[in-house]
Protein backbone atom coordinates (compact mmCIF):
# COMPACT_ATOMS: atom_id res chain seq x y z
CA UNK A 1 0.00 0.00 0.00
CA UNK A 2 1.19 3.46 -0.87
CA UNK A 3 1.02 6.17 1.81
CA UNK A 4 2.21 9.76 1.80
CA UNK A 5 3.87 10.93 5.00
CA UNK A 6 4.13 14.55 6.12
CA UNK A 7 6.69 15.73 8.65
CA UNK A 8 6.73 18.96 10.62
CA UNK A 9 9.02 20.91 12.94
CA UNK A 10 11.37 18.74 15.05
CA UNK A 11 10.25 15.57 13.28
CA UNK A 12 10.85 17.14 9.86
CA UNK A 13 14.37 18.00 10.95
CA UNK A 14 14.86 14.53 12.37
CA UNK A 15 13.55 12.77 9.26
CA UNK A 16 15.27 15.19 6.88
CA UNK A 17 12.27 15.67 4.56
CA UNK A 18 8.92 17.48 4.71
CA UNK A 19 7.10 14.70 2.85
CA UNK A 20 7.79 11.26 1.44
CA UNK A 21 6.00 8.30 -0.09
CA UNK A 22 6.29 4.88 1.54
CA UNK A 23 5.01 1.41 0.66
CA UNK A 24 3.77 -0.55 3.68
CA UNK A 25 2.17 -3.96 4.15
CA UNK A 26 -1.59 -4.40 4.53
CA UNK A 27 -2.68 -4.02 8.16
CA UNK A 28 0.04 -1.56 9.16
CA UNK A 29 -1.09 0.64 12.05
CA UNK A 30 -0.27 4.31 12.47
CA UNK A 31 1.82 3.48 15.55
CA UNK A 32 3.80 0.83 13.67
CA UNK A 33 4.41 3.21 10.78
CA UNK A 34 5.65 5.88 13.18
CA UNK A 35 7.95 3.43 14.97
CA UNK A 36 9.38 2.35 11.62
CA UNK A 37 10.18 5.95 10.67
CA UNK A 38 11.30 7.28 14.05
CA UNK A 39 12.54 4.19 15.90
CA UNK A 40 13.65 5.62 19.26
CA UNK A 41 11.46 8.66 19.62
CA UNK A 42 9.98 9.82 22.90
CA UNK A 43 8.01 12.81 21.64
CA UNK A 44 4.27 12.38 22.27
CA UNK A 45 2.78 12.70 18.81
CA UNK A 46 -0.77 13.05 17.51
CA UNK A 47 -1.50 10.41 14.86
CA UNK A 48 -3.27 11.98 11.89
CA UNK A 49 -4.78 10.12 8.96
CA UNK A 50 -6.24 12.17 6.08
CA UNK A 51 -6.28 15.28 8.28
CA UNK A 52 -8.17 13.59 11.13
CA UNK A 53 -6.62 12.80 14.51
CA UNK A 54 -6.89 9.02 15.03
CA UNK A 55 -6.10 6.33 17.56
CA UNK A 56 -2.52 4.98 17.20
CA UNK A 57 -3.83 1.46 16.51
CA UNK A 58 -5.88 2.55 13.50
CA UNK A 59 -4.75 0.88 10.28
CA UNK A 60 -3.64 2.84 7.25
CA UNK A 61 -5.22 2.33 3.84
CA UNK A 62 -3.82 2.59 0.33
CA UNK A 63 -3.54 6.23 -0.75
CA UNK A 64 -3.66 7.67 2.78
CA UNK A 65 -1.96 10.88 3.77
CA UNK A 66 -0.47 10.37 7.22
CA UNK A 67 1.14 12.84 9.60
CA UNK A 68 2.59 12.55 13.08
CA UNK A 69 2.33 15.88 14.85
CA UNK A 70 4.81 16.86 17.54
CA UNK A 71 3.43 18.97 20.43
CA UNK A 72 1.82 22.11 18.98
CA UNK A 73 3.18 25.63 19.44
CA UNK A 74 0.70 27.96 17.75
CA UNK A 75 -0.45 31.22 19.27
Amino acid at each position, binding site marked *: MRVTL*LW*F*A*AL*RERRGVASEVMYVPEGTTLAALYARCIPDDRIPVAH*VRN*QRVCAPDERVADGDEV*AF*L*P*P*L*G*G*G
Partner: protein
Amino acid sequence: MIALIDRAIDVAAVRRAVDDPGCGAVLVFEGVARDHCDGRRVLSLSYEGWPAMAEATLHAIADEVRGQWPGARIALVHRTGEVAVGEPSVVIAVATPHRAACYEASRYAIEALKARLPVWKQEIYEDGSAWKANAPTGPER
Protein backbone atom coordinates in the same frame (compact mmCIF):
# COMPACT_ATOMS: atom_id res chain seq x y z
CA MET B 1 -11.15 36.56 7.42
CA ILE B 2 -9.76 33.15 8.43
CA ALA B 3 -6.21 32.47 7.30
CA LEU B 4 -2.72 31.15 7.87
CA ILE B 5 -0.38 33.61 6.17
CA ASP B 6 3.39 33.98 5.74
CA ARG B 7 3.66 37.76 6.07
CA ALA B 8 2.94 40.45 8.67
CA ILE B 9 -0.65 40.50 9.92
CA ASP B 10 -2.65 43.64 9.14
CA VAL B 11 -4.30 44.04 12.55
CA ALA B 12 -6.64 46.83 11.40
CA ALA B 13 -7.88 44.66 8.53
CA VAL B 14 -8.63 41.78 10.93
CA ARG B 15 -10.57 44.22 13.12
CA ARG B 16 -12.51 45.55 10.12
CA ALA B 17 -13.50 42.01 9.13
CA VAL B 18 -15.83 41.77 12.14
CA ASP B 19 -17.54 45.15 11.62
CA ASP B 20 -21.24 44.75 12.31
CA PRO B 21 -23.75 47.43 13.28
CA GLY B 22 -25.54 44.85 15.43
CA CYS B 23 -22.50 44.28 17.61
CA GLY B 24 -21.84 46.54 20.60
CA ALA B 25 -18.61 44.85 21.71
CA VAL B 26 -15.38 44.20 19.81
CA LEU B 27 -12.18 42.64 21.14
CA VAL B 28 -8.94 42.28 19.22
CA PHE B 29 -6.51 39.79 20.74
CA GLU B 30 -2.90 39.88 19.60
CA GLY B 31 -0.46 37.11 20.51
CA VAL B 32 2.89 38.88 20.31
CA ALA B 33 6.45 37.55 20.17
CA ARG B 34 8.05 38.02 23.59
CA ASP B 35 11.74 38.72 24.21
CA HIS B 36 12.29 36.03 26.85
CA CYS B 37 11.30 32.51 27.82
CA ASP B 38 12.42 30.50 30.84
CA GLY B 39 15.11 33.09 31.58
CA ARG B 40 16.58 33.04 28.07
CA ARG B 41 16.68 36.03 25.77
CA VAL B 42 14.62 35.40 22.62
CA LEU B 43 15.62 37.29 19.47
CA SER B 44 12.69 36.16 17.31
CA LEU B 45 10.24 33.35 16.78
CA SER B 46 9.94 31.16 13.72
CA TYR B 47 6.59 29.49 13.03
CA GLU B 48 5.93 26.52 10.78
CA GLY B 49 2.42 25.37 9.90
CA TRP B 50 0.51 22.73 8.02
CA PRO B 51 -1.55 25.07 5.81
CA ALA B 52 -4.35 22.70 4.73
CA MET B 53 -5.11 21.38 8.19
CA ALA B 54 -4.47 24.72 9.90
CA GLU B 55 -7.03 26.53 7.78
CA ALA B 56 -9.57 23.75 8.36
CA THR B 57 -8.91 23.98 12.11
CA LEU B 58 -9.29 27.79 12.12
CA HIS B 59 -12.61 27.46 10.27
CA ALA B 60 -13.78 24.81 12.76
CA ILE B 61 -12.93 27.07 15.72
CA ALA B 62 -14.73 30.00 14.08
CA ASP B 63 -17.81 27.82 13.50
CA GLU B 64 -17.74 26.74 17.16
CA VAL B 65 -17.62 30.39 18.29
CA ARG B 66 -20.51 31.35 16.00
CA GLY B 67 -22.51 28.36 17.23
CA GLN B 68 -21.84 28.95 20.91
CA TRP B 69 -22.29 32.75 21.01
CA PRO B 70 -25.24 33.78 18.84
CA GLY B 71 -24.61 36.85 16.73
CA ALA B 72 -20.83 36.58 17.14
CA ARG B 73 -18.53 37.53 14.30
CA ILE B 74 -14.93 36.30 14.32
CA ALA B 75 -11.75 36.74 12.29
CA LEU B 76 -8.67 34.59 12.94
CA VAL B 77 -5.27 35.04 11.33
CA HIS B 78 -2.08 33.19 12.27
CA ARG B 79 1.28 33.91 10.76
CA THR B 80 4.14 31.59 9.80
CA GLY B 81 7.80 32.32 9.17
CA GLU B 82 9.99 34.58 11.28
CA VAL B 83 8.23 36.94 13.68
CA ALA B 84 10.28 39.69 15.35
CA VAL B 85 9.89 40.52 19.03
CA GLY B 86 6.88 42.81 19.46
CA GLU B 87 5.12 41.67 16.30
CA PRO B 88 1.92 39.62 16.42
CA SER B 89 1.99 35.95 15.44
CA VAL B 90 -1.77 35.62 15.84
CA VAL B 91 -4.66 38.10 15.76
CA ILE B 92 -8.22 37.24 16.75
CA ALA B 93 -11.02 39.76 16.38
CA VAL B 94 -14.41 39.01 17.90
CA ALA B 95 -17.57 41.10 17.78
CA THR B 96 -20.76 40.26 19.69
CA PRO B 97 -23.95 42.10 20.54
CA HIS B 98 -22.89 42.43 24.24
CA ARG B 99 -19.53 42.48 26.07
CA ALA B 100 -19.72 39.37 28.27
CA ALA B 101 -19.99 37.05 25.29
CA CYS B 102 -17.16 38.90 23.57
CA TYR B 103 -14.68 38.18 26.38
CA GLU B 104 -15.78 34.56 26.58
CA ALA B 105 -15.62 33.95 22.86
CA SER B 106 -12.23 35.62 22.47
CA ARG B 107 -10.75 33.51 25.27
CA TYR B 108 -12.31 30.36 23.86
CA ALA B 109 -10.83 31.02 20.43
CA ILE B 110 -7.23 31.56 21.58
CA GLU B 111 -7.28 28.55 23.92
CA ALA B 112 -8.77 26.32 21.21
CA LEU B 113 -6.19 27.58 18.72
CA LYS B 114 -3.28 26.89 21.08
CA ALA B 115 -4.56 23.38 21.76
CA ARG B 116 -5.50 22.35 18.22
CA LEU B 117 -3.86 24.43 15.48
CA PRO B 118 -1.15 22.46 13.62
CA VAL B 119 1.49 25.16 13.95
CA TRP B 120 4.92 24.87 15.58
CA LYS B 121 7.13 27.52 17.15
CA GLN B 122 10.88 27.73 17.24
CA GLU B 123 12.55 30.22 19.58
CA ILE B 124 15.67 31.81 18.15
CA TYR B 125 18.36 32.69 20.74
CA GLU B 126 21.74 34.38 20.41
CA ASP B 127 23.37 30.96 20.61
CA GLY B 128 20.90 28.55 19.03
CA SER B 129 17.23 27.67 18.77
CA ALA B 130 14.61 25.31 20.21
CA TRP B 131 11.13 24.06 19.32
CA LYS B 132 8.73 25.13 22.06
CA ALA B 133 5.38 23.44 22.70
CA ASN B 134 2.33 25.02 24.29
CA ALA B 135 1.60 23.84 27.81
CA PRO B 136 -1.38 21.44 27.58
CA THR B 137 -3.08 22.82 30.72
CA GLY B 138 -2.18 24.55 33.94
CA PRO B 139 -1.24 28.09 34.88
CA GLU B 140 0.20 30.48 32.34
CA ARG B 141 3.85 31.32 32.61
